[in-house]
């Protein structure tokens, strides 16, 4: 070998940078794989199925628009769509408002240690199956159940609360409230304390501090909480079926109805795609708004 030897230090550095790249690649690689596996492939399949047909109760690959024509031609489709959308939006707003005082207390009143414990309590419901939690609400809400018995004891008529919007809302809150609590608390806890102190030192009243300092600063996190509450409520089937019970027909119920009646998976896929599209638009608009620069 007559070539001048590469200085050892240099080769070591190159080796090191190669190793570093490999190391990084190792961490980056799963991302596209997971995205492909859990997002792109299922979505692609859903799109494909929406063009398939059902022959003798069997899903058959095809290229037909009949499922799209059928679903878009349903006269009650948009009524159901707006009902679902409106119900979950009002649930999301109500859940956010309900969660806010608690999140505020955890962020500003509790010590960090207490906050951890309280957040732990907020997460605890996830240890139980959601289905079980919804079923146990039936015991509370049914006629002769816990709530109606209490109302009766105070002289009310104690009617069943099942199949009311209240019951549906309870279901949505069971699902979304813990998530919203956590998101809001993190958002509020990360608000720069010096800004708050500065506002207080300049003589701002607590109300003004809340509305003009804390809320604008925590806006992205608070909006994300609202968005998550909406997403979870919008796609929710269990409480719509078991607590709202048909008085409030939502799109997830329509999806199951379409599958149950004649195994119309393509039609169900179309409804799901409509839901996904409306969710994406909503999420996009909300996130834009949340991270908008102050004008």
């Amino acid at each position: 070998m007559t070539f001048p030897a590469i200085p050892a230090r240099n080769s070591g550095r190159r080796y090191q940078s190669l190793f570093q790249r490999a190391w990084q690649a190792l961490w980056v690689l799963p991302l596209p794989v997971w995205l492909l596996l859990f997002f792109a492939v299922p979505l692609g399949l859903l799109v494909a199925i929406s063009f398939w047909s059902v022959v003798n109760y069997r899903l058959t690959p095809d290229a037909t628009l009949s499922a799209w024509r059928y679903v878009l031609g349903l006269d009650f489709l948009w009524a159901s769509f707006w009902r679902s959308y409106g119900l979950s939006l009002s649930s999301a707003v109500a859940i956010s408002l309900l969660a806010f005082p608690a999140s505020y207390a955890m962020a500003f009143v509790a010590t960090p240690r207490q906050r951890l414990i309280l957040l732990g309590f907020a997460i605890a419901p996830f240890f139980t199956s959601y289905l079980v939690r919804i079923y146990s609400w039936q015991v509370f809400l049914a006629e002769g159940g816990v709530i109606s018995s209490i109302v009766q004891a105070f002289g009310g008529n104690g009617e069943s609360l099942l199949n009311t919007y209240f019951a549906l809302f309870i279901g949505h809150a069971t699902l979304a409230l813990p998530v919203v609590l956590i998101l809001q608390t993190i958002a509020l806890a990360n608000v720069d304390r010096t800004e708050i102190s500065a506002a207080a030192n300049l003589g701002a009243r607590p109300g003004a501090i809340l509305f003009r300092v804390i809320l604008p600063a925590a806006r992205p996190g608070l909006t994300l909480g609202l968005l998550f509450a909406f997403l979870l409520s919008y796609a929710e089937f269990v409480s719509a079926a078991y607590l709202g019970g048909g008085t409030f027909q939502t799109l997830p119920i329509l999806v199951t109805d379409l599958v149950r009646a004649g195994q119309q998976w393509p039609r169900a896929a179309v409804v799901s795609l409509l839901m996904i599209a409306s969710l994406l638009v909503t999420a996009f608009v909300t996130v834009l708004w949340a991270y908008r620069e102050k004008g």
Partner: protein
Amino acid sequence: MTHSIITSRRRLIKGGLAAAAVLASPTVLRAQGQRELSMLTWAGHADPDVIGAFEEEHNVRIRAKEYVGGDQMLAQIAQSPAGTYDVVLADAEYVVQLQQAGFIEPLAAEDYPFDDFFPEFQNFRGHWFDGEPYAVFLRFGFLGLSHNRAAMSEAEARSYRSMWDSQHEGRIGHFDWHLPNLGALSLLNGNASPFDLDEQHWTELTDTMMSLRPQVRGFYDYGGMLSALRSGEVAAIPGIGDWITGVLARDGADVTTTIPEEGGLQWTESLSIGAGSKNQDLARTFIQYMMSPEGQVKTATLKAYPAMIPTKAGWARLNDEQPGEAQRQNMVLNGPNALDEIRAGRIRLRELPVQQSLETWNDAWTRYKNA
């Protein structure tokens, strides 16, 4: 004695092992020759109380695939290779579809106790094709207006019309399936063949249904109906019957099913042998067991949902062994019984729609729910 076993761990382990060996050995020996019988069935039929004795006697393990609703049953069987299911339990109205799609085998009439059937159930509609049976009528029940007595009296339940009363506003429940609901309302509209409707009568029927919508509390599955009727959250549910109220009545709830003046429907469940089954002999033996007086009494008193039975021998045995249940289900031998309702022409078979497609009925139901 017990004390000493517990205190000496070694002895406990030794004793336990010995006991386990003794208990396990016949099972192990028996398991070697054990066969499997697969069954596609409505939920609840694979109850050990019903099939346990058969499994024991024939050293068979029954593997049940349960479905909810005829559409799901057809989809299940269409998506599986031929021979997947040895026994198929289906609603009678779906037997025609099973037969036409070639999903079930023809049966030999002489293998089953058709002669012991009450005459009403012999040559049952939709079960015989070119003189050959494809399904054996296993059990049946009537559908009318099921109601919580505290909320709706029997006198009121004598007409489906009572569901429109202002006092029952928001108190009418529905079983979430179009066929029995539309059938019951079709009877109310005075259609002699409730499922065979021309365009005009079909439009009238959907109008009748839509006018009931403001009274509706909710749409329920099996479990939902049980709790809603028991608690009185709903006063009445049309198009269901003793298969729900019988379960509740057994538990002492004050609910019952009345067959209104406008008439009631009959649901029917039948057993068939799946096309291409490799265990046809065993499937036949199983159906014979279910049609024997023993099997008939067991299926009549099924925990999930009771039913009436078509064989005279089954009635006799039920009256013998469980006179109370025979009385409750209106299957008494000496005196007026459920068969009188059929003979008086008050009962129509539940069928698939004749002039419209199943899809049209489905759509009408979905539209109703979303109204």
